[in-house]
């Protein structure tokens, strides 16, 4: 039980459904209970990392604000799957700060390094 660690994988674009919110809520719950948690964004989940989203125009909660609040709760292990960025023509430099791009091999290692992986 000592080496439990949780990796939350976000694979959906923000706003279309509320599932990613469930993932963020779980990340904050882990922080509240002092449990290690890492976040990985891949596939359409990489769209969550674009800055200057104007979610209020569709009456949605802004995911950028949620992401910005995570370091306040010591949730600061954020990763993005670089091939997912390349496939969508996105350069890592335009994303919000504090997210580390990973190669496919590094993503595999990240998943292997965690005792539990949950997908949102």
């Amino acid at each position, binding site marked *: *039980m000592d080496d*439990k660690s*949780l990796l939350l994988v976000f694979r959906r674009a923000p706003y279309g459904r*509320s*599932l990613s919110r*469930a993932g963020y*809520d*779980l990340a904050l*719950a*882990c922080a*509240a*209970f002092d*449990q290690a948690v890492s976040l990985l964004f891949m596939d359409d989940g990489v769209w969550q990392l674009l800055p200057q989203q104007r979610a209020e125009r569709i009456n949605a909660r802004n995911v950028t604000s949620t992401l910005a609040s995570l370091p306040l709760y010591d949730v600061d292990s954020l990763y993005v799957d670089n091939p997912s960025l390349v496939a969508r023509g996105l350069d890592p430099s335009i994303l919000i700060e504090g997210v580390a791009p990973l190669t496919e091999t590094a993503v595999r290692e990240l998943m292997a390094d965690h005792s*539990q992986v*949950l*997908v*949102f």
Partner: protein
Amino acid sequence: MKFSLLVLNSPGAAQSGDSALAFARAVVEAGHELYRVFFYHEGVQHGDRLAVPAQDDIDRQAAWAALAADHKVDLVLCIASAIRRGVLDENEAGRHEQTAASAHPAFELSGLGQLVDAHLHSDRLVTFGG
């Protein structure tokens, strides 16, 4: 082995709920321990006792309740997900000044800490739906 399940979709709307139920039965029939079933996101609708299944459909809630009664399985609805979707126990109905409680008594409303706890105390945490 000690298992916990995470159920994310509403009953009938996706095959995942039925898969979770079948998996839960298989776990206990194989002699493993089912530590907790955590219903999160749309999955909390499994606990809505006011939902009436169609006559030609199975009663998934009754099946979960029977499993819980027979094997002392902890069925937990995420409280934040549940109250947003109108699944309230007596406490929450009172707190939010609603006229009726809608949560089935076989299910307990509790916080995400119960999912974190399940992660910590189970050998496997298996997700259904998403």
